């Protein structure tokens, strides 16, 4: 079949099982938009307010489903506008396909209008990228991009297609959807060594990250925990992989993690790290991190092994397949002494828990927990609200927590929540702050245009809360540029975008607001007023260790 390059792009997307793309048109991608028009019965396009929102939406789509999300934008500013979102996906290993238009090949390199070297710009923030020189290579490059995005450790792939390549004609032959590269367990000898290490320890601890979600290793991990009688904690990226109320689960660990999980990891004599990378937000000062602990580390990406924390047993392999081989080799044991210690850590955590009444962050999220169901995707932005959400949300099913962990992108959540709703057909929740929401509230236009059922909970404290918290603790309360004092009325903003909204200043009002929001057909904004001096606790100060967890901060009066 003789087709134009732009038709080939759209046909190949359809061939690869993509029926929904996010994007924004522009001069150098017009041919592709004409093809999207042509094939609109087979592939839907969601028009956002800004390319960044489109790319975050594609990212949210991918996080919620595990399938690659696709974003399309034009050259120049269209391409640079997706850069933050591509980097966000890269740091969190999200499969994302970004297709950008560019000026015709004969104009490349001449600084023509809206020309930008987007493959150069995105080199360090993509798994791989392509500049397509000829229409003949286009279909196979797209297929390869899909394969790369989902194989091994997932990640974003960008394809830059000059306008003349979109226009040129070429034979197209439909092919089957790609299959991801085959995954392998670790070598038997490595499996045996790892199992021996686990068998020889007395206080094992399982620490997992996003790799367990993308490798679908939850069930086998829980079996292992059961057999070796180990507690489990996770990084921010691991949240929602196992049910929050699972008896072995101590919660997220790290800078703002649960006291019990951070302390348990620090007291373990063997950490079994699965699909995680010992990020500085988890370890604090690496030199003081779990000093006497043996580390068994399994990751599909070999470069993560011994990158941040030295692994005694580093297995570059698929987690699920490796654990399936390790499981029969480990001894079934009960560890009453270790469990007793864990219970002690849990009790200490409980003693330090925030039990205040009223509009406190934990009460707000706890109330929200009674409205969401097991299928509700919850997205966050970045800051205090993100940590409160991570600490207090209750998940029952995987892929329900969508948060920018690695890059920490304020403005991520709005697009991500929209993308997640399109992907799952479920009402999504966005937990955001007044600062973060200010970075992406333009996407309310998208939410109302498509009547996306979503609850937007703005934890509004009038300040950049996390910045303020650090300034309180480490900068002598010099609140430099962290007091917003914007006088924005988020309810009126919602109404101006043709959404609905209400303000909640106490828990009763919040309950009424949730009642309305969760039965509303479309986006609903809740401006939830909280105190500016609420802090995220516990906290491990940057560069400190897990022995030095801050559990209280004197309130500013």
């Amino acid at each position, binding site marked *: 079949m003789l087709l134009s390059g732009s038709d080939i792009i759209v046909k190949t997307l359809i061939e690869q099982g993509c029926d929904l793309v996010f994007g924004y048109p522009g001069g150098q991608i017009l041919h592709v938009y004409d093809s999207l028009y042509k094939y609109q019965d087979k592939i839907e396009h969601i028009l956002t307010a800004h390319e960044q929102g489109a790319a975050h939406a594609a990212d949210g789509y991918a996080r919620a489903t595990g399938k690659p999300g696709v974003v399309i934008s034009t050259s120049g500013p269209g391409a640079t506008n997706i850069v933050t979102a591509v980097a966000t996906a890269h740091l969190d290993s999200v499969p994302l396909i970004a297709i950008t238009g560019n000026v015709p090949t004969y104009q490349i390199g001449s600084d023509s209008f809206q020309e930008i070297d987007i493959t150069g710009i995105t*080199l*360090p923030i993509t798994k791989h990228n392509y*500049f397509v020189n000829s229409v003949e290579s286009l279909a196979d490059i797209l297929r390869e991009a899909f394969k*790369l995005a989902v194989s091994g450790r997932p990640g974003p792939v960008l394809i830059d297609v000059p306008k003349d390549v979109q226009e040129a004609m070429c034979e197209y032959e439909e092919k089957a959807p790609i299959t991801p590269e085959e995954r392998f367990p670790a070598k038997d000898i490595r499996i045996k060594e790892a199992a021996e290490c686990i068998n020889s320890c007395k206080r094992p601890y399982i620490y997992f990250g996003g790799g367990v979600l993308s490798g679908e290793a939850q069930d086998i991990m829980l079996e292992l925990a059961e057999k070796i009688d180990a507690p489990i904690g996770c990084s921010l990226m691991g949240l929602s992989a196992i049910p929050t109320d699972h008896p072995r689960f101590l919660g997220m660990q790290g800078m703002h993690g649960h006291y019990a999980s951070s302390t348990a990891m620090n007291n373990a004599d063997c950490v079994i790290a699965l699909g995680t990378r010992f990020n500085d937000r988890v370890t604090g000062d690496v030199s003081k991190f779990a000093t006497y602990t043996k580390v068994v580390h399994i990751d599909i990406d*070999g*470069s993560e092994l*011994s*990158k941040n924390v030295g692994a005694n047993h580093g297995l*570059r392999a698929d987690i699920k397949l490796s654990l399936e081989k390790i499981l029969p080799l480990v001894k079934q044991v009960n560890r009453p002494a270790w469990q007793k210690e864990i219970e002690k850590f849990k009790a200490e955590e409980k003693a330090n828990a925030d039990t205040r009444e009223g509009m406190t962050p934990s009460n707000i999220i706890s109330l929200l927990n009674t409205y969401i169901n097991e299928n509700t995707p919850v997205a966050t932005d970045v800051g205090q609200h993100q940590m409160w959400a991570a600490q207090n949300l209750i998940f029952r099913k995987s892929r329900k927590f969508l948060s920018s962990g690695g890059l920490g992108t304020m403005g991520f959540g709005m697009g991500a929540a929209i993308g997640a709703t399109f992907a799952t057909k479920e009402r999504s929740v966005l937990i955001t702050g007044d600062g973060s929401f200010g970075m992406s509230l333009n996407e309310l236009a998208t939410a109302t245009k498509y009547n996306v059922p979503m609850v937007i909970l703005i934890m509004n404290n009038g300040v950049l809360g996390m910045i303020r918290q650090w300034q309180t603790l480490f900068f002598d309360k010099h609140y430099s540029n962290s007091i917003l004092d914007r006088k924005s009325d988020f309810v009126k903003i919602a109404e101006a975008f043709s959404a609905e909204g209400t303000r909640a200043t106490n828990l009763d009002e919040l309950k009424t607001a949730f009642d309305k929001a969760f039965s509303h057909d479309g986006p609903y904004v809740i401006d939830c007023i909280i105190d500016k001096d609420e802090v995220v606790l516990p906290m491990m100060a940057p560069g400190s260790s897990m022995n030095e967890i801050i559990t209280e901060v004197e309130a500013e009066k």
Partner: protein
Amino acid sequence: MNRYIVAVLVNNQFGVLNRVTSLFRRRQFNISALTVSETESNEFSRITVTFEGEEDNKQQLINQLYKLPDVCSIKELNNDNSVSSELLLIKMKNDPATREDIRAAADAFKAKSMDYSRDSIVFQLTGDSRRIDDFINLMRDYTILEICRTGIVSLEKGSSTIRKVTNL
């Protein structure tokens, strides 16, 4: 600090060298020399990286390189398992007072005179890096006008080739 030589076989396409060097830059690997050329097959280019650091850094460098889809295979080379060579061009000031000393040193090293003018002499020397360092150090007693060296190229001894290396 140790010195490592790593040979990398990559797809022979434009932009691949940029991908490799960009990786070194952003991860702040301390590269002391880099050579690139086509190989026996026009499908592949060969990059030889000379790198100073610790064992961990080297392993991280290799692991990161393996993540680039354009990297086909990687082989670590050392003095025991490989032959290495480097080429130096050095331009010396041609001063009657030192001319004979410079020529004597060049003869001792079997450096070849490539250009001779009233004010300058250009020598070419090939050999391992140590030999080239030694010659340059000797020349520092006189006036060096310009130096250019290629960086190391290295091949494994015996019949095995880099293409036979399978991914870790």
